[in-house]
């Protein structure tokens, strides 16, 4: 039995499932990226893995237990989640925000933080390079800084599985490399199981051990980056023409878009994708 296994999952809202027939597995030390066009169901999948999107059918086993039987606290000890958007209402500081990841570990509801909690909070802030911001309020941070704080919070939760919804979306190139480098380190050295929804195929193929292409809520292809970065598959999934090259620093394949220039008409497939706008917010 794999650590996390999803069987034939259908999720979304009654009458209009966003994802259907999704099956995938994730082991400790695996780093999987879910890629697909806008509205294909990437975020829905990440959320459904934590029951944040209602399920219509299917089964998820986590660490040998049915996900439906887990209580909120038990889930929090196994899965950490970095949402795509986060709009803080109250002025919590960076440190307070990261510390909230440890609430579920406190023995009683009124207990304080233990030495171990403090060490985990500190380390998470150090790894994500937000230690110098710890007294700042979330509202004072830039999008990229905020994103790193959310990642710090997920790390402080100290779970075997990390789920991230488009972690690179608010980050500049340098921080994208930092964040993916950090995730890679967590995968390699700490044996975390990581699943990201990601738009940037080159980033995903350089760092992830596996890719899953989904389209219209269904898995279209699943495999190692060098297997999936292939002209025909990319045309089918995204409706674009690409060239495949080899990145000199990684030796891994990388896509290069063929720009059609002005007067570009969408390939019909792309139209179909556009008709599922639920995801794209």
């Amino acid at each position, binding site marked *: 039995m794999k650590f996390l296994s999803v069987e034939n999952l259908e999720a979304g809202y009654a009458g209009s499932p966003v994802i259907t027939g999704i099956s995938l597995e994730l082991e400790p030390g695996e780093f999987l990226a879910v890629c697909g066009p806008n509205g294909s169901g990437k975020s829905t999948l990440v959320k459904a893995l934590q*029951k*944040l999107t209602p399920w219509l059918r299917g089964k998820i086993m986590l660490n040998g237990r049915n996900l439906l039987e887990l209580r*909120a606290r038990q*889930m929090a000890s196994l899965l950490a*989640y970095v949402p795509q958007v986060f709009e803080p209402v109250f002025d919590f500081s960076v440190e307070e925000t990261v510390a909230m990841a440890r*609430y579920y570990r406190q023995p009683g509801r009124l207990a304080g933080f233990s030495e171990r909690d403090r060490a985990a909070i500190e380390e998470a802030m150090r790894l994500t390079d937000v230690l110098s911001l710890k007294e700042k309020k979330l509202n004072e941070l830039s999008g990229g800084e905020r994103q790193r704080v959310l990642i710090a*919070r997920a790390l402080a939760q100290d779970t075997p599985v990390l789920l991230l919804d488009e972690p690179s979306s608010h980050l500049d190139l340098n921080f994208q490399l930092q964040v993916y480098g950090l995730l890679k380190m967590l995968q390699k050295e700490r044996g975390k199981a990581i699943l990201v929804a990601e738009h940037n195929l080159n980033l995903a193929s350089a760092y992830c051990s596996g890719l899953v292409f989904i389209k219209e809520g269904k898995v279209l292809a699943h495999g190692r980056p060098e297997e999936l970065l292939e002209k025909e598959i990319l045309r089918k999934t995204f409706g674009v023409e690409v060239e495949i090259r080899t990145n000199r620093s990684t030796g891994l394949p990388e896509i290069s878009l063929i720009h059609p220039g002005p007067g570009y008409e969408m390939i019909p497939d792309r139209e179909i994708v556009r008709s599922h706008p639920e995801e794209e917010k």
Partner: protein
Amino acid sequence: MKTSWRLRCLQLGLLLFTLLALFLSLKLGPVKTSLAEVFRALTSGKGDLADIILSLRLPRALLAYLVGAGLALSGAILQGYFRNPLADPFILGASSGASLGAVLSLQLGLALNLAGLSAQSLLAFLSSLFLVSGVYLISERRHFQTTESLLLTGIAAGALASALTSFLLFRRADAYEQAVFWLLGSFSLADWQQVWLILIALLFGLAGAQYLARDMNLLSLGDETARSLGCPVKTVRRIFLLLATLLASFAVSVAGIIGFVGLIVPHAIRLIIGPDHRKLFLHSALAGGLFLLISDLMARLVLAPSELPVGVVTAAFGAPFFIYLLNRRRPS
């Protein structure tokens, strides 16, 4: 750390000013009393003026304090609940429901007394609870996500209850004066039974809120984040809504509708010590008590020997203070 220094200052300030305000509430009034008499009444219960101090001024001061604490706590809970610093204890129609009940009992001329509650208070309490429960049940059935629909249903139901109240008052002008006084809030009918009743409600509410304060911190980040950080969102939300509604309904039933306390006190405390609900709940309650104690003192003194409705005072002197606090805040 800066925050803990501010917390200490706040605590010290609250303690000193509460003692001072409590003492002034006992000493000042239409009947002149000396320092010695207040002291003698409190220690021995004897003296000519002991009766005035112990059975009029003391319960009134305590009731004002407890109601203020309850309203501020209720406001703090609902601001976190709705993730909105503009929420107040009456946002789901507790006040409109209570007014309707009170005005109805005045019109029906009901007379009874149960645990310190008159027919008017009792009906106000029940109709307030009834209205908020109805709002909750209606909005829960419709949607998967209830916060917005709850809020909107509350506003609509409140408007409906207010319309009915106005209609009743319009039909029977003779009850108008009595009703208006109640609608603007007053502690002139305070007695010891009410003090005990509100004390129990407040302690219950405070204990519950404090116990779940961590979860409120998580809820204030949004339901999805709260869930992923280990908060049983649905259960916690239900409990908080129940606590906030009970506190608001009890407060309204003994003192009428006193606006502004539940809105500005938690907000002001949050500006001073930050948004952590583990500290915010308790200190909002303490500050709300002090705020209403002072407001009631002013309501008694400003136009002595006649009295102002205390709701007028809370707004008149709370609003400028609030604006000052908002402007003092550094721009982000």
